[in-house]
């Protein structure tokens, strides 16, 4: 109360706004102080709620899921949670371009892993269990493309972005251009991997 008494009416109106006090602009200083005091109690509760919300978060989401994310050339991140299954052990199968590449035994209920895969492939994973000698798929992940550092040569086609027509463009010196590009790629790599 004493602390609020020290503030100017304008400052009290600003505080009243934070508390959502209606008709605050019409109130006198003492009325504002009373209203703020009354509004404080739920705010203190709010603070407690906020404190809790910003400090406590389990690594688990408590929702069944299987996701894969691209990390860097040759690596993806896989995270899963399975609810309501008795089995302790599952199998994670990794697919590259829709072909099964390898499988890994994993804890079924929760796990995370960075998996080495081939660059530039479409990767997805499946999680399942062995049941009566048969594999039962429980979850299928999303699909991602693995980042790559590989270069791909190909046909050089040009398009007019205004007319959408394909066009032929003149090339003055492909060899010299290549040299420039190679030099710049080298600089770009040096920058990317320098620890600044």
């Amino acid at each position, binding site marked *: 109360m004493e602390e609020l008494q020290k503030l100017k009416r304008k400052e009290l109106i*600003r505080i009243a706004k*934070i508390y*959502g006090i209606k008709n605050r602009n019409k109130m006198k200083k003492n009325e504002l102080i009373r209203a703020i005091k009354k509004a404080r109690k*739920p*705010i203190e509760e*709010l*603070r407690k*709620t*906020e404190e809790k*919300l*910003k*400090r*406590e*978060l389990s690594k*688990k*989401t408590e929702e069944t*899921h299987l*996701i894969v*994310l*691209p*990390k*860097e*050339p040759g690596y993806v*991140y896989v*995270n899963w949670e399975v609810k309501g299954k008795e089995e302790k052990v599952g199998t994670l199968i990794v697919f590259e371009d829709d072909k099964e590449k390898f499988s890994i035994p994993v804890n079924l209920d929760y796990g*995370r892993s960075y998996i080495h895969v081939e660059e530039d492939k479409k990767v997805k994973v499946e999680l399942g269990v062995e049941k009566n000698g048969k594999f039962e798929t429980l979850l299928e992940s999303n699909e991602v*493309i693995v*980042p*790559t550092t*590989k*270069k*791909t*040569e*190909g046909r*050089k*086609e*040009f*398009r*007019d*972005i*205004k007319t959408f027509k*394909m066009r032929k*463009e*003149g*090339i*003055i*010196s*492909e060899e010299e*251009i290549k040299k*420039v*590009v190679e030099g*710049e*790629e080298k*600089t*770009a*790599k040096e*920058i*990317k991997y320098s*620890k*600044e």
Partner: protein
Amino acid sequence: MRGYLAIVLHSHLPFVKHPEEEFFIEENWLFEAILESYLPLLYNFYRLKKEDIPFKITMSLTPPLSNMLLDALLMDRFKRYVNSRIELTKELIKEGGSAKENLIFYRARFETLFNFFENELKGNVINGFKKLEQDGDLEVITCSATHGILPLEVHRKIQEVQVQLGIENYRQIFGKDPKGIWLGECAYAPPISQILSKYGIKYTILDAHGLFNAKPAPLYGIHAPIVSEDGVVFFGRDPEASKQVWSAKEGYPGDFNYREFYKDIVYELDSEKIKKYIHPAGFKFDSGIKIHRITGHVGLDKKELYNRNKAEEMVEIHAGNYMFNRERQIEYLSHIMDRKPIVVAPFDTELFGHWWFEGPDFLYKLFKKIHKDSSLVKTITLSQYLEEYPVLQVSSPAISSWGDGGYFKVWLNDSTDWIYPHLYTIGKKMLGIVNKIKNPNEIQKRALNMLGRELLLAESSDWAFLITVGTAVSYAKERQTFHINAFNKIYNEILNNNIDETFLDYLEQRDSIFPFLNYNIFTEER
């Protein structure tokens, strides 16, 4: 004239607003950026206009930043922030001493910039962007809604919402559609090109390897943009033109005559004496008054006083050197290409002024020099280049980002990977609940809109970045955790029909980004 230089400045800060506290340290990120970067840059761009010096520049303005710049409470606090610095310099000047000249310089600078803010910009930084955009000097582009790393978002619909809201936010401010977009952290992976095309975005910018490793590898490397099959244009960052400015070690900002960033006057003053200017709880934080120069590879106690005249001489030399290097680069390229080459040099806006104090003056001098002295180089905006050269090589850009290492390890690593399963899960809940709640009442609508805001704020790349680089780690973890938990709290309350209105009111005041947001944007098309 042989070719073009396209300076691109990316203006972004995470959404930080804490009405529940009278002083909140992290809100200073915004105030520092306004006073040290945005105002000096706009001030110098206005100077160029007054001097009839033509210049062209492309700048992104991200939705979190623009929402903060338009927030009345934050702008009131910004004024308080500046005034307290003006007062502090006045008090310190009275005391005299060897630093007096530098303190007078700071006071004059604060007053000039604040006067520019109040009178020329009418108390709204965005007015400066608008004016320069209308005059055609500056091309403002948008950004994904909360600077999310789109390749790390599993739900395509939410990737789309990030782009849609970025466009809508731009429309609300500029009254038209943006031509270009800055992807948060320049992070690219399919199907982003399709999404940009779907929402009418003409172009974006990638790091160099996004073009070098495109399929097929572009003939002109990064010196001409490429167009994807979806019709979206991708410009590539020029490594050399960027490094000279960006690198604190090898670049211009490390020159010994420039102002030292890490030595702030406040830490040398007696807390009791400057009580009014520090946090009410008694701890100190940067005042922005930094009166020493880098000096050399010496400890902070050995730094010498800043000499403004000497720093200005170096700015002149560095601007000349930068122009010379671009001229040589462009002159050579122009002989071997069938079009005028473009050198794209993107930077974080906050590098200019906040980190590199003399940065805004460097740009001012560079534009002036190019206009007066160069017959080889001209500055250009990215869409102007496309007007002149609409015929582009068709190529699919490569997965990439402009972060350390060039991909996603900055945001996805052992210390941050706990974030993504939560983002996936709350994203899935968001996409589900908008279909589940038919005909919501008013309070349910408010709660659904708030769910959208909490989800989007949880997706900001900033929290993971800060955790990885070890800056403001506890704040970043708290924010990341809070938005995920707040989402889940409101989600459960909506489903259980017991919405905590007091908490909702509070969140609407605090996480007040995108006041126009309608939860229906998350509805999947059928």
